[in-house]
């Protein structure tokens, strides 16, 4: 096993912008191998987007306290400053966002922005840059790429813009691609196209990808490994087969059971996870999921669980893993 490309250790991110401190990420350990796709799966407040943005150091320095370490191919990301930091962004690691309209400057054409990105990091002429941009557009399967290079963002459809954003991210041949819910805002038929494209590009270019999503289906389609996050912590991590076929954390089990709509469940009530997403300004002591967990015991409420290794590469942070081998017991349905 070659050394992992990206290593995140004991990462904690606390925001001090509002009245109370928000602990968005609480002790996250992650590693991303070369050519691997890792999906961060979770709902709002899980800390998945914050983790991703911290890799690119996108948060406001004054209002964010970051602890722990992030190392990309040997570079200490958290120690980067100034010129080194701007060089890092885009070249070593690049990001694609959920809303492509927001990532593009509306007053410049898409082609201009890609060329700008390339020339920011490499010494190429404008013509060379444009040639590269054209190649990228062909690679992301944008029809009539020559013409589209000169289009403004608002002139493109949603799917096209997303492809353009992927082209922008890949412009400087980054080592890591960070995808923050890039398909959430897309229609179903377009989402499938973009996911297939990303998978194809990842294979061709050997990219390492961290893919943040709240949709299990998306994670299954693209990821090699899945990390399920809740309240700023990773509660379960493993290969995609481990997590989908043999989930062991009550939260993962809950998520997967609500996803089993369709056919089988019509007429019955959905097995729903009770309660609401956690309040990150007032996390309970112990396991953050305990207030909503069927299997919660006193231990769960008092002590935050440590990671338990269930199989090689399959870790779960739960005190009750012994009771989840066959899934969750059938509980009273909540509404």
């Amino acid at each position, binding site marked *: 096993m070659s050394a992992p490309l990206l290593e995140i250790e004991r990462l904690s991110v606390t925001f001090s912008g509002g009245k109370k401190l928000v602990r968005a990420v609480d002790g996250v350990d992650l590693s991303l191998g070369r050519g691997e796709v890792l999906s961060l799966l979770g*709902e*709002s407040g899980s800390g998945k987007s914050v983790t991703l943005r911290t890799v690119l150091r996108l948060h406001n320095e004054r209002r964010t306290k970051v602890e722990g370490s992030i190392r990309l191919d040997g570079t200490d990301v958290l120690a980067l400053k100034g010129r080194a930091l701007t060089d890092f962004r885009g070249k070593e690691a690049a990001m694609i966002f959920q809303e492509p309209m927001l990532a593009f400057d509306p007053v410049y054409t898409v082609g201009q922005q890609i060329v700008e990105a390339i020339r920011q990091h490499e010494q190429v002429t404008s013509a060379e840059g444009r040639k590269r941009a054209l190649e990228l557009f062909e690679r992301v399967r944008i*029809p009539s790429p020559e013409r589209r290079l000169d289009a403004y963002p608002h002139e493109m*459809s*949603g*799917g*096209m813009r997303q492809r353009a954003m992927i082209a922008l991210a890949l412009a400087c041949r980054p080592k890591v691609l960070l995808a923050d819910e890039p398909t959430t805002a897309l*229609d*179903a*038929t*377009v*989402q*499938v*196209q973009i*996911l*297939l494209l990303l*998978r194809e590009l990842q294979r061709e270019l050997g990219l390492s990808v961290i893919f943040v999503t*709240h*949709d*299990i*289906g*998306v994670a*299954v*389609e693209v990821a090699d490994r899945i990390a399920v996050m809740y309240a700023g912590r990773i509660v379960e991590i493993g290969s*995609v*087969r481990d997590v*989908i*076929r043999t989930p062991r954390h009550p939260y993962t089990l*809950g*998520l997967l059971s*609500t*996803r089993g*709509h*369709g*056919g089988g*469940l*019509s007429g019955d*009530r*959905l*097995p*729903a*996870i*009770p309660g*609401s*997403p956690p309040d990150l300004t007032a996390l309970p002591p112990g396991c953050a999921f305990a207030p*909503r967990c069927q299997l919660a015991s006193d231990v769960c409420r008092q002590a935050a669980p440590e990671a338990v290794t269930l199989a090689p590469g399959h870790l779960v942070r739960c005190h009750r893993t012994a009771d989840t081998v066959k899934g969750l017991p059938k509980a009273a*349905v*909540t*509404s």
Partner: protein
Amino acid sequence: MLSAEEIDNWNGGTPPAPAKLPPALLEVSGLVKHFPLKGGLFGRGQGVVRAVDGVDFTVYTGETLGIVGESGCGKSTTARLVMQLIRPDDGRIVFDGVDVGGPKLPLKGYRAQVQMVFQDSYASLNPRMTIEESIAFGPTVHGVSQSEAVARARALLDRVGLAPQRFAGRYPHELSGGQRQRVNIARALALKPRVLILDEAVSALDKSVEAQVLNLLLDLKDEYGLTYVFISHDLEVVRYMSDRVMVMYLGKVAEIGPTEQLYRASRHPYTTALLGSLLSMDPDRRTTEAPLAGDPPNPINPPPGCRFHTRCRSAEALCSEKVPGPTRIDGEAPHYAACHMADRTSGHSRAPARSPV
């Protein structure tokens, strides 16, 4: 008994056993809405957005009709037209046998019977009114006394799972998305409607909260004998909630029929493509091919003939010339597909052969 509409659309073959359908509650026919594009002198003259371009459907009492489609299909506009929040350019809405807006059913009376829950839970509530004031507003408009309206509001809050003593005096910004959506449901129910239109009501919620709200909706439907129109882009949720599903494309109905029949044996290529875009839950059997290329087109200049023909793999010359009407598909419950391939009389090479009579 076959309705007049069913007989009109009959395309031959053995008539199905007359299904025991519940009475039709909402009958929409020929609904049209075009929005003028801004620009040009006086803000007109740049073309129209054909948001809804001839939509017919029926909602039967006690059922849940799901409406699915992608951007530009017109499902939200249809919802607002049914609610009469926008005035249709053409078309007729009949509620319980009576013309809406006519002398026997003025708008105000109609609105007490058909209510809507919107997608954006925060924007749907007046930020300056407390929760119970928001819920009690509707009934007071219809003559209910203030004290009774407030009592009803509190009872409804309790019913949707929000303890009145904790929530009645709060403001919308103090509640979470799921809680606000429950308030919106309570607000819609305060008028004791018979039909509830849910326009992407759970789309903005987290999955875990979404399941709770869906369960609540099902409970309320059973308890109060409601009829739902459930609009969503999430095909799995629609499959779970609906008895029948209507698929819309570019302002027209592509297919409408019983849920399972539609999901398992769709007869319109767009429906098939849409269902084919559902993501796999099995890591060993991932999707390998996207069923459709390109983005959903713009309803400003829809293609001639069948609107889907530009992206359809089975399109033929006929498809760009003639608009396919709804063709009845064999089966118990009414199932229609607007496709030449389903129509024996169309002349499409893939149309079923005429059976010997």
